[in-house]
């Protein structure tokens, strides 16, 4: 990459895809101009900006790039719709819902558990093992983090217990999927049920009706005053998730380890031939995915809420799975999807005031978007070639 000429750089960075991304940004702007602090009152403003985005999308389409083109057009249409709605809404409601700092920090809060689990799931799927059990591993992490933090008296002991518990559940899944060549969906479903049962059983057995104690050690916030109201008081785990994102990207695409993981997931026979241990790589990737998903769960219990309740992940593991797919099995893609999905959760809670119950529909947004993503209307999500297929040594 380093010795690329100017022409190659131009080819790589000023592509139709990039221009499509600009179109997406303009589409978003169509909505944003109608919100505080801009507050465009006239309907034509968002419509104009949105049409601009659609025009960019059509141009990109005409150059033969389906995915960025349709994405920009989609964002343009949605931007116009939301923007027009926002110009019609009363300013009082808008100011109440659209508090950017609050919305952004809530987005980060809800995105962080998804980021951990999605990056974990990405490693597992990149190595060729489907991990439907993310939900269960996350739940196990949430419970054992609370248990560890409470019994050992340190939040970091909570994190350690969560990681170990997640790794243990993942090891069961790995053993089933890799060694016994069991159906990975069955095994993952079993992990989800097992985690639900085990955490519920021991939660009731240990804490009973009273729930986890209120004075449980919690993962601290990091106070960096000069970064402002949003980034100045983020939880440690949010910063760790940023770090994890970069490490995951570098590991996956810039190191021999990442190459091994990807080759095992794309073509295990070829990887085996050149001396990469398919089993060991897959074991490592799956166990890592469990530990990461569990850390995501730990953030929920001892980071954000400070308590554990039965089935508290409530489908977030599946949203993480959706983020893996929506993000096209890439760390930054998964992170972007996690932000989007976390944002829809945050918006759903904020909209509860003016919209009432209808705001829960925002909770369904991640699933609907993923359905659209896998249908390939806006570019197709392509999984690793050997995902879900057990490997037999010869």
């Amino acid at each position, binding site marked *: 990459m380093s010795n690329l000429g100017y022409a190659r750089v131009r080819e*790589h960075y000023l592509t139709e895809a990039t221009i499509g991304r600009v179109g997406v940004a303009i589409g978003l702007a169509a909505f944003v101009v109608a919100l505080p602090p801009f507050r465009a009152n006239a309907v034509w403003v968002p419509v104009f900006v949105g049409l601009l985005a659609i025009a960019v999308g059509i141009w990109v389409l005409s150059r033969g790039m389906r995915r960025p083109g349709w994405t920009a057009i989609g964002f343009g249409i949605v931007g116009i719709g939301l923007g027009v709605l926002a110009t019609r809404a009363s300013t009082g409601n808008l100011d109440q819902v659209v508090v950017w700092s609050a919305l952004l920090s809530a987005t980060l809060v809800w995105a962080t558990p998804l980021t951990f689990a999605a990056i974990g799931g990405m490693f597992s799927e990149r190595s060729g093992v*489907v991990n*439907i059990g993310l939900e269960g591993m996350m739940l196990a992490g949430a419970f054992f983090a609370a248990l560890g933090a409470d019994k050992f008296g340190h939040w970091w002991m909570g994190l350690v217990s969560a990681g170990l518990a997640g790794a243990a559940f993942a090891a*069961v899944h790995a053993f*089933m999927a890799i060694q*016994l*060549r*069991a*159906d990975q*969906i*069955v*095994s993952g*479903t*079993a992990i*989800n*049920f*097992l985690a*639900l*049962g*085990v955490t*519920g*059983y*021991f939660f*009731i*057995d240990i804490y009973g009706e009273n729930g986890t104690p209120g004075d449980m050690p919690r993962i601290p916030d990091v106070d960096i005053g000069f970064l402002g109201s949003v980034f100045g008081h983020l939880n440690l785990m949010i910063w760790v998730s940023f770090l994890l994102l970069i490490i995951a990207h570098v590991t*996956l*695409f810039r190191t021999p380890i990442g190459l091994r993981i*990807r080759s095992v997931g*794309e*073509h295990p*026979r*070829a990887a085996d031939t050149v001396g990469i241990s398919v089993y060991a790589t897959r074991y490592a990737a799956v166990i890592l995915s469990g530990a990461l998903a569990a850390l995501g769960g730990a953030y929920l219990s001892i980071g954000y809420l400070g308590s554990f309740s039965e089935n508290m992940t409530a*489908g977030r593991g*599946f949203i993480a799975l*959706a983020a893996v*797919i929506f993000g096209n099995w*890439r760390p930054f893609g998964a992170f972007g999807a996690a932000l989007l999905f976390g944002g829809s959760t945050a918006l759903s809670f904020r909209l509860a005031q003016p919209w*009432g*119950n*209808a705001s*829960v*529909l925002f*909770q*369904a947004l991640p*699933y*609907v978007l*993923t*359905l659209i993503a*896998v*249908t*390939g209307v806006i570019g197709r999500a392509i*999984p*690793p*070639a*050997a995902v879900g*297929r*057990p*490997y*037999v040594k*010869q």
Partner: protein
Amino acid sequence: LSEAATPPPPVEGDPEAYAPSVAKRMAFYQRAGGIVTPFLTAVFAFLMGGIVVGATGHNPLRVYKAIFEGAGLNWFLHFGNYHIDLPFTNHHIWFWWDTSTNHTAAYNLTQTLLTTTPLILTGLAVAFAFRCGLFNIGGQGQYLVGAIVGVFVGSRFVDMAHIPHVALAIVLAALAGALWGAIAGFLKATVGAHEVITTIMLNWVAYWGGSYLFGRDGPLQNHTDKSIPISDDIADGAKLSAIWGNAQLQALHSGIFFGLAALFVFYIILNRTTLGYEVRAVGFNPEAARYGGISVGRNFIVAMAISGLFAGLAGGLDILGWQFRLGVLDVQVSNIGFIGIAVALLGRNTAVGVGFAALLFGGLLTGTSTRSLDPEIFPPQLAGNLALMIQALVLLFVGADLLILYIWQARRKMRLPGAAKAAEKAA
């Protein structure tokens, strides 16, 4: 950019290199006697559940006995000299067991059978798709959609006569489930989207959709008390008739006949029709089926629609039979559709197997419920989670068939040298 390279096509011509084929595994189940493996699976799962119970300071034997009695299965152990009424007449005839639901055992048994009905259907929903080579994880969503349509039709059209109203509600609920399932089949057939992903997503769309519809000021919230997030009650005319027990106390309803009939229909479709032949052919080997002139895509859609039909029917029957209304909480805590996965896999995706597995899980769910389990012996909150663990272990052991295969082969190997030595000695 190296990571953007298109993935190489999967290795072809060497299917055994990846995993034992479906056919090979099916053959193994047959060889092991068909019933032995599921039986061992269940026994192991209960055994390990018992270890957890024992490790946390309870007596596993007493707990399982309490669950057995909570499920009402001890009813069968009490023989005597009783009567049952003949339907449509004033006569009654002699019967071996006491059918009066005044006794706890009989009452618990009605509850077990009540739970067994939807489990049969959601089990079939998973099993049917499985026979077509599809993994339908969306039984829960299809069940919910069926229940939502069931409660909608049941609570509207109040003036309709009993039979047409029930029929309309059941048919529409089943069709709604079929539609929900067919979406996944359609996406698989047209764009190749993996059905596991799409059905998971559809489950959650149904979950949040239901939470919206019956929530506060939702379109289907009840008209009497706007503070309760629950639907209107269905009309009396839309309720299924009680066949055993007191209708005021959640009696066993006639829906169980639909469940049993569905088992029969499942068997007939799969084994005695062209449709079933095609479905199974696609399930064994889609490429071979395509080569043989079968439209694989069409079978994906049809199989998912039929699967959804079973699950939607389950949702409709639960509403018309005993729930009579649907609330946000019901939508969010229900997991009948997910248990269907365990039912189907334990029942080896056959009609008879699903029937027995549904009864087992129906008994387990009822036996561990707050209503039936004796809290003196074992707290029901723990028991509910124990039931989940047992379910998970069943799934794990079903997946571990290869382990059993290894053990089976190892045992044969061990026996063979032994037999040879014995023969030498005899000589």
